[in-house]
């Protein structure tokens, strides 16, 4: 089947927004995942047909050290209800030391967000290795539950 560009659907309909642009109920969680560990772990979860909530969207990055804390702010601005940064366990970085920098950056950033009134349950940094598919599943479930309980995020949210 090939589709011609001209056929149309309302753009908001599929992404959880109703026609008038108000929020649908399911929260959306954005996860920045290191290609070498958590992303692989997520693939493994798939391979093992584990089930976890469908409201997580993964952005693949080469290393958790690539994740700029400003990405987190941007995600909250755009409408994320929860954000995660996932990397290799300390000592296991594919690039030797990237996650040590992640650790320092996000210890500061997480506290700064909390300082600015963002609920710490909305931002999580986690170490999940390529073999920890179950940990990935459980973490997503845990964060999704926390974020759902909090309801949609309005703080830092851009008005549309």
């Amino acid at each position, binding site marked *: 089947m090939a589709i011609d560009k001209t056929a149309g659907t309302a753009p908001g309909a599929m992404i959880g927004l109703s026609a008038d642009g108000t929020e649908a109920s399911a929260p959306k969680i954005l996860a920045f995942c290191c290609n070498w560990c958590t992303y692989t772990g997520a693939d493994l979860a798939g391979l093992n047909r584990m089930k976890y909530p469908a409201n997580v969207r993964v952005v693949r990055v080469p290393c958790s050290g690539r994740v700029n804390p400003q990405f987190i702010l941007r995600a909250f601005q755009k409408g994320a209800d929860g954000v995660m940064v996932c990397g290799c366990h300390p000592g296991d970085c594919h690039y030797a030391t990237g996650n040590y920098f992640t650790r*320092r950056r996000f210890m500061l950033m997480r506290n700064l967000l909390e300082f600015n009134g963002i609920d710490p349950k909305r931002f999580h940094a986690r170490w999940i290795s390529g073999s920890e598919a179950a940990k990935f599943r459980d973490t997503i479930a845990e964060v999704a539950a926390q974020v759902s309980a909090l309801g949609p995020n309005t703080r830092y949210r851009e008005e549309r």
Partner: protein
Amino acid sequence: MNKNEQQQKMRETAARLLDAGEAAYVIGFGETRFPEKTSILFAHNAEEADRFVWNDACVQSLAKYLLEDRFADYRVGIFARGCESRAINRMIKDNQFKRDHVHILGIPCEGVNAKRCASCAVHNPVVYDELLWDAVPEPNPETARFARAEAVEAMGPEERYAYWSDVYSRCIRCYACRQACPVCSCRECYVDMDRQGFQGKRHSVSDNQTFGVTRAFHVADRCIECGECERVCPMGLPILGQTQKIIKDITQLSGDYQAGMNAEDGNFLGAFDLDDKDDFM
């Protein structure tokens, strides 16, 4: 030495420096029409050097003006208190100019303004070519170093968000904080770069808040806690709290941390310790 004698000493030293050709000009404070305000004076000769003033109105940080002529092939003289000297160290560490580009006239200072200097912990310049008068005892600041941050920390999450929302709803995005900050030395500020997509330009609380947090994170481990950002804010916003919070956390993670005490030490975020603490699980 009282301030008048100190002022005389400053004028003499600057004149000597300029006469000897050791510096092309000297940066200091000059008079304005208003007794409670001073201007920045760039003295090129001994005559001009005689117009330097030194009083409690000298609240500006002189250091940032060094960046104006950082590419020049002449030396620049500058009066430096504790705060300015730390800024200069930071600039040297950030490769903005070499140490021998500046002739630092160290002026120990016991504080000029109650608001600006309340939490100052470094009265004496930490780097200088000559010290104009004897060092003064280092203070036990009346205001705790992180008072601003601690006050906000004490609030509940709702209150904190309301507090900062209120602050940033008043921000007019004039970027005076950035202009005045002695460690903001980027050639082009990220806020001026639309295509990167880091920063929205709308005048909204959301974009203002993002700007506020990002600005704090950009100075983070390099902030010398001089308070210029807050002093120059035309809306009088208490934005030093953000950087204070970061430095407080750094201090908690790795022990006492003061940026700009020398020009050699690495940045907190440019290093790591295998045993750094985290609770990321």
